[in-house]
């Protein structure tokens, strides 16, 4: 009962936030001095053709009218057309979403599976030479991941593992030049190839995933390690753990108490990280010619193609808003102090 109302309220907030996102994008596009009509007709076009395009896009109407039209279009799923692909932006985005989703989600899973245990280990092992060295390394690693550009790391990995060692395929997309995609079920090649028992496609796509996933994981795990470590350290020094110790509880029990309390803030960082990963994917996809949303946005920018970029920004914002919503729900279950 209470849970249901809580979820309802959060979904309501989500809707308001989405209206905000849409409005911000609208004003970004219509009020900033750049003119999409100029970009659409290209350099050296005359006034008349610009005016014609503006009329076609509805830019000659008053701003509030434009806003309503814009909302109406969005509601029907119309994000405008792309010049360089000649398709609707919606079709383009749907086609490319699985590539990005697969890449980012696998990277995120790895950052969690490796990062959280690593951070907790460093927090718990405070004495001894090895623990000291590991702790130093983790500190420097955390600092470095915030400083190294992900696209550069990708290039270095390509040089080492593709050019020198020859153990990964050339960084050309998800399947290389020769690979054949598995029959489309979800669009995620790894899952589709398993579902259709297409092991050749599975091998090819897994091999192409190695470097981009490694790049993203190495860079974006730093945040998670740092957060897992600092929350765990904090919790281990808190009063209720002191009390548990004083009561003579076994170490394993104390740690399981601490773990549960340290988890909630870490979940927050994980969600933030997903948003960073989506931003990072734009760059890393470009390096690996990945053919996902990020690369699409970058191509659009180079071609001064306008609606693909705003469409992309909108889709990421919606994705992240939904992610934060699910995070809030998970949080409520992890932390009983949060009332529904």
């Amino acid at each position: 009962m209470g849970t249901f109302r809580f979820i309802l309220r959060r979904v309501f907030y989500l809707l308001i936030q989405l209206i905000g996102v849409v409005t911000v994008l609208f004003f970004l596009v219509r009020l900033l001095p750049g003119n999409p009509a100029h970009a659409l007709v290209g350099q050296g076009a005359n006034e008349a053709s610009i005016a014609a395009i503006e009329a076609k896009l509805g830019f000659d109407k008053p701003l509030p009218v434009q806003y309503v039209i814009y909302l109406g279009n969005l509601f029907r799923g119309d994000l405008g057309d792309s010049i360089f692909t000649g398709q609707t932006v919606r079709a383009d985005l749907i086609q490319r979403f699985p590539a990005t989703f697969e890449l980012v989600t696998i990277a995120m899973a790895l950052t969690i599976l490796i990062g959280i245990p690593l951070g907790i280990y460093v927090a718990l092992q405070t004495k001894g030479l090895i623990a000291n060295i590991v702790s130093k390394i983790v500190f420097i690693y955390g600092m470095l991941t915030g400083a190294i550009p992900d696209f550069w790391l990708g290039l270095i990995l390509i040089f080492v593992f593709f050019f020198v060692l020859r153990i990964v395929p050339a960084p050309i997309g998800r399947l290389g030049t020769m690979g054949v995609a598995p029959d489309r079920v979800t669009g995620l090649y790894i899952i589709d190839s398993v579902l259709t028992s297409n092991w050749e496609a599975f091998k090819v796509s897994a091999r192409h995933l190695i470097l981009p996933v490694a790049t993203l994981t190495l860079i974006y795990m730093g945040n998670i390690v740092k957060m897992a470590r600092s929350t765990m350290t904090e919790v281990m020094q808190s009063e209720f753990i002191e009390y548990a110790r004083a009561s003579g509880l076994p170490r394993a029990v104390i740690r399981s108490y601490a773990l549960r309390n340290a988890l909630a803030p870490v979940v927050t960082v994980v969600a933030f990280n997903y948003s960073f990963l989506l931003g990072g994917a734009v760059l890393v996809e470009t390096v690996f010619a990945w053919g996902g949303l990020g690369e699409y946005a970058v191509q659009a920018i180079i071609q001064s193609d306008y609606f693909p970029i705003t469409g992309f920004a909108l889709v990421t914002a919606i994705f992240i808003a939904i992610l934060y919503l699910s995070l809030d729900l998970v949080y409520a279950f992890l932390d009983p102090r949060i009332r529904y």
Partner: protein
Amino acid sequence: MSNIVKNLRSFFRFTWEHRSLRYGSIIIVAWVLIAILAPVISPMSPTKPHPNNILEPPSSQFLLGTDLDGFDMLSRLLWAPRIDLGIALISTALSVLIGVPIGALAGYFGGRGSVIGIGLELIMRLVDVSRAFPVFVFALAVVAVLGTNVTNVIVALTFANAPVFVWLTRSEVLGVREKPFIEAAQCSGNSDLRIAFQHILPNSLASPLTQLSIVLGFSILLTAGLSFVGAGVRVPTPEWGQMIARGASNMITGQWWTALFPGLALGSAVFGFALAGDGLRVYLDPKQRRQFESEQMLGGGPPTPAPASG
């Protein structure tokens, strides 16, 4: 006056004693000096191609090699911080100048039923909304709309970074405004604006200042990222991210020097700001700072290993 001198002295002493702040400052100062001295120390023109020396590996003539147009990598690398640090400094300064006052006002007037209060609430909601975009995607969209040039990169970064400062300042102000000395200021008849800017703001700057160094480093990364995808600084202007982009295809064919060196330069600069930020965090938090200083006293002599950040 003597107070300022004393504060500066204690800051410099702290900088020297705190390891990450020391190394961070050294790196930052080094890059700033390189940026200033670039015309003197760079061996060649950064924008003059050598058509007969395309993609040459590092040699005594070209210490860091040449790129696909025959530009001297070293010269470009030394000129690049002018653009990178310049953009980072200007955009961060602007986002502080915009973000901190808005945050202060929103914290002070927020939650009151006045016209200003409601307007500020609206701005806060906008700040919340902007959090829904990944920072890089947001900056990319702004540059895409405005057009690709240095000024627009600065505008995009300012838009992207200002919300952080609004947020941090507001939450600090919310805490400070309940303190007794503010009540005292109100009782003695100070105006709202005077209280907000004279009494509350100076006491609410710790966490925005801590963020300063981080945002500076992050802005360098964003600038480089934008340039890398062709939405930032254009050739021939030397810029690290764009240098890496130009070397990208050569990395696949084995000309490692084309992307390695600009990436190291970029990474080291951002690393410097991250280290300095770690030290500043301790310096600006009285509790952590006292703890650090007492550890220094106890240790005596050579500084003991700085406690890893917790």
